[in-house]
C-alpha cells in the first residue's frame, strides 16, 4: 500500500513528528511504500537544518532526512507555511524540498491511505 503522511507540528514541542516518524518507519518495515511526507503548519520546522537538540536526545530533522534518503521518500515542506515561519531553501536540511499545498492534495489522491499527525 502507498501511504501519505501529513505532519502539522514542529519537532519537540509536540509528539506529532516522533509519532509520524515511528509510524513511517514501521510502515516501511511492513513493506509499504511512503508516497510522500508533507509538512504543514508548524510541521515545516522539521526541515530546519539549524535545529540543534541536546546531544543525548534524538535529532528529528536528521532522522527524517536519513529515513528519506534511505528509502527515497519525498519530504515536502509547504511553501506558504514555510514563508510565514522563515523556513527557506538556505536553511533546509538535505532531502527536503519546498513546494505547494497541491502536493498534499495530490498525495491524498495517489496514496491509498493518508494519516495526519498533529496537535
Amino acid at each position: 500500500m502507498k501511504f501519505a503522511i501529513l505532519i502539522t507540528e514542529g519537532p519537540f514541542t509536540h509528539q506529532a513528528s516522533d509519532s509520524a516518524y515511528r509510524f513511517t518507519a514501521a510502515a516501511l518495515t511492513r513493506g509499504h511504500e511512503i508516497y510522500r511526507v508533507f509538512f504543514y503548519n508548524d510541521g515545516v520546522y522539521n526541515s530546519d537544518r539549524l535545529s540543534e537538540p541536546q546531544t543525548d536526545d534524538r535529532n528529528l530533522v536528521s532522522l527524517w532526512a536519513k529515513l528519506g534518503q534511505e528509502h527515497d521518500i519525498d519530504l515536502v515542506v509547504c511553501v506558504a507555511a514555510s514563508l510565514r515561519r522563515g523556513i527557506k531553501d538556505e536553511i533546509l536540511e538535505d532531502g527536503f524540498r519546498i513546494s505547494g499545498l497541491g502536493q498534499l492534495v495530490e498525495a491524498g489522491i495517489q496514496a491509498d491511505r493518508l494519516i495526519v499527525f498533529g496537535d
Partner: protein
Amino acid sequence: MSEMNEFDENAPTVVKRFMYVNRRAPYGTIYALECLEVVLVAAAFDQDVSVVFLDDGVWQLKKNQDTTGIGMKNFSKTYGALDDYDVEKIYVEKESLAARGLTADDLVIPVEVLAADDLREVMAQQDVVIGF
C-alpha cells in the same frame, strides 16, 4: 469509494471524497486559516470536497469579525470564496451551533446544518479526512 472516469479526457482518473474538518476557533491558533488555504487549493483538483465545521470550528464562520484591535488579518470573508471555487458541501453540525448559542443566521456564508446523526453518515463515507 472512488470512481474511474473513462470518458472525459480532462477529468482526473481518480475522484476521492476529501473531507476537511475544522474543530477550532479562529485567531487563537492558525489552524482555521491554514485549513481554509488547503481547501482553496484542493478545490482545483476536481475531487469530491466537503468542509465540516464542528465544535469550536463553527466560530470560524461567525459574522461581524473585527480584528483591528488584535492586529490580525480578518480572513472570514474568504469563506465566501468557497462558493466561487465550487466547494459546495459545507456542513456545520447543528449541536455544535446550539451549544454555542448560534444559528445559521449568525454565519458569514450559507451552510448546510446537519444533525450529528446525519453528519456521522457523511463522515463515514469519506476516503481522505484531513483535520487540523
